[in-house]
């Protein structure tokens, strides 16, 4: 990651609680801070209930944060008030959803699904231009131009996810949140969609927040990775660093649990157990993300820094 890179998104001390003040209060996201640089892919990994999806939804302002700030292009998104504010914000930030079956309206034609953003933002002067833009988009994502007048049920899962990607691209966003975009797809199709996302990033200079539980896929697509657990961000670093030299015990445990398509490796694999008790905060000595080696952060107390530095040094 070069120093010059511009921060496109800054998440500062984000807290997203549900049922605040009630007995069943859930701290879905608890004091999460990270930056995403322009043009990179930031992967957010974690198991179910870790808060990764909630973080994504807070960023695109589907929730009102309980506390903390989210700055997109330097502007605080909680300050967005009017309809026009939201229109221009959502033109720059789009989302691709997990379930390609549930995220397309079955009663709408593909061209109308893809063009919804174009219509809302008045990006096409007339019908002919609208059709052309839609057909170009379908071609960009690897579908046929003449697919535009079909309905979602006529497409396979992988094709539907391509339609979802075309819809997100239609308003020429800068930033795309992809929430588990491939987990509903077959193995042979997953690679197609991931490669498409990578190609589009290169061609359009997009920035991705890639949310997933599949660590090997996240590692493959991401430049940097954040590991979440129980609503907290435990470790942030470059994809290679986090995988090759995991510092937090949870990250190490998570990586050790990933099955690898290699019987030789599997025969010798040892799963590292993890005890979340060590995550407990003590008053007066809070844990937060601290830089252990340049660009590689771990959530720890002041005292633990030395411990992690020792661990990092042992890797080399």
């Amino acid at each position: 990651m070069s120093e010059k890179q511009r921060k496109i998104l800054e998440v500062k001390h984000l807290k997203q609680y549900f049922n605040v003040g009630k007995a069943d209060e859930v701290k879905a996201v608890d004091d999460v801070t990270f930056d995403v640089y322009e043009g990179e892919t930031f992967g957010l990994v974690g198991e179910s209930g870790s808060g990764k999806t909630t973080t994504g939804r807070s960023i695109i302002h589907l929730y009102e944060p309980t506390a903390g700030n989210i700055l997109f292009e330097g502007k605080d998104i909680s300050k967005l008030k009017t309809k026009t504010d939201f229109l221009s914000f959502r033109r720059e930030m789009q989302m691709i959803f997990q379930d390609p079956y549930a995220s397309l309206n079955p009663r709408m034609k593909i061209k109308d699904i893809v063009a919804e953003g174009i219509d809302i933002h008045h990006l096409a002067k007339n019908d002919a231009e609208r059709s052309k833009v839609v057909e170009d988009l379908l071609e960009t994502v690897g579908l046929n131009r003449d697919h535009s007048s079909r309905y979602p049920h006529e497409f396979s899962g992988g094709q539907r996810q391509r339609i979802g990607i075309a819809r997100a691209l239609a308003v020429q966003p800068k930033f795309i949140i992809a929430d588990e975009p491939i987990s509903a797809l077959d193995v042979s199709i997953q690679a197609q969609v991931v490669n498409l996302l990578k190609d589009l990033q290169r061609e359009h200079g997009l920035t991705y927040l890639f949310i997933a539980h599949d660590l090997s896929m996240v590692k493959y697509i991401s430049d940097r990775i954040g590991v979440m657990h129980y609503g907290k961000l435990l470790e942030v670093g470059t994809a290679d660093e986090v995988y090759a030299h995991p510092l937090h015990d949870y990250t190490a445990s998570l990586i050790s649990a990933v099955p690898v398509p290699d019987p030789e490796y599997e025969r010798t694999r040892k799963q590292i157990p993890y005890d979340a008790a060590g995550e407990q905060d003590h008053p007066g000595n809070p844990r937060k993300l601290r830089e252990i080696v340049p660009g590689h952060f771990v959530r720890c107390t002041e005292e633990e820094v030395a411990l992690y530095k020792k661990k990092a040094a042992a890797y080399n």
Partner: protein
Amino acid sequence: MAERILDVKNLKIDFHTYAGDVKAIRDVSFHLDKGETLAIVGESGSGKSVTTKSLMGLLANNAEVTGGSIMFHDQDILKKSEKEMQNIRGKDIAMIFQDPMTSLDPTMRIGQQIAEPLIKHKHVDKKKAWSQALDLLKLVGITDAEERIKNYPHQFSGGQRQRIVIAIALVCYPEILIADEPTTALDVTIQAQILELMKELQEKIETSIIFITHDLGVVAGMADRVAVMYAGQIVEYGTVDEIFFNPQHPYTWGLLNSMPTLSSTKLEAIPGTPPDLLDPPKGDPFVARNPYAMKIDAEQRPPFFKVSETHYAATWLLHPNAPKVTPPDEIIRRRQTFKDIMAHKAI
């Protein structure tokens, strides 16, 4: 020679639909030996789940077995009546399903659900059945089992529920356990625990496992042998080392190539989508997506060519007259590992 407990021969299954007959299983043969784990891998629609449902006599009403036999010891399962199947199901052949949330009865205490097969199949009295259920609950790693046995499914997490489902499946010590994507709905750390548990239990009760999955990582860790299915057919089968380190069918190459490993830098996707089984291709079903396809692939279904005593692949590339092709780099790398393993074994 291991004892053969299941032998499926030339199985053919059609589904009658409004659009026509879907030829879901097209001439599938495989066998299962005592104590081994056979993994069947394939994409959705490849027929892996239909195959195993036919073993349990659980095919949908619109399904028709149009040929073949399923020999369980010396009896043909396909010739059994529903009544006879009820005596086999859960007792000799048990099944674990993908979704632990929906495979338990929400209105029944889990102790009752585990004890039920014992009462029904083994005619154990209720008290004894519950005490055996308790033992099993401890065995699958549910803590505080004495209390928890009285709980209902909603009081357990996803991983715990899958442990309970495993307990139910194993309570009669079945000869065959069919696990259909048993860990797909679980988180990776929980998945690792469940897989470990299955391996332990398999040793304890000496059951054979048919493991259905699309996750090649899980296969690599679980299977003794692997069968790769595509478009209703098995295209390659062999030992786990033979399939992962010396694959022969271009579809197997494609699958291995499209999975990221923790070190991979490039992913080769398989282009296109699987064929429509309403009108399956007459030759090699993979022909349309196969960069190595030859003219004959479109015209004639390849027979199984023998690679070793345990390894067979249905691809014309293995025909003596076929041109020599260079497989993808990843496969060449894997074959090098295979040579090392074989050399190591020879010593």
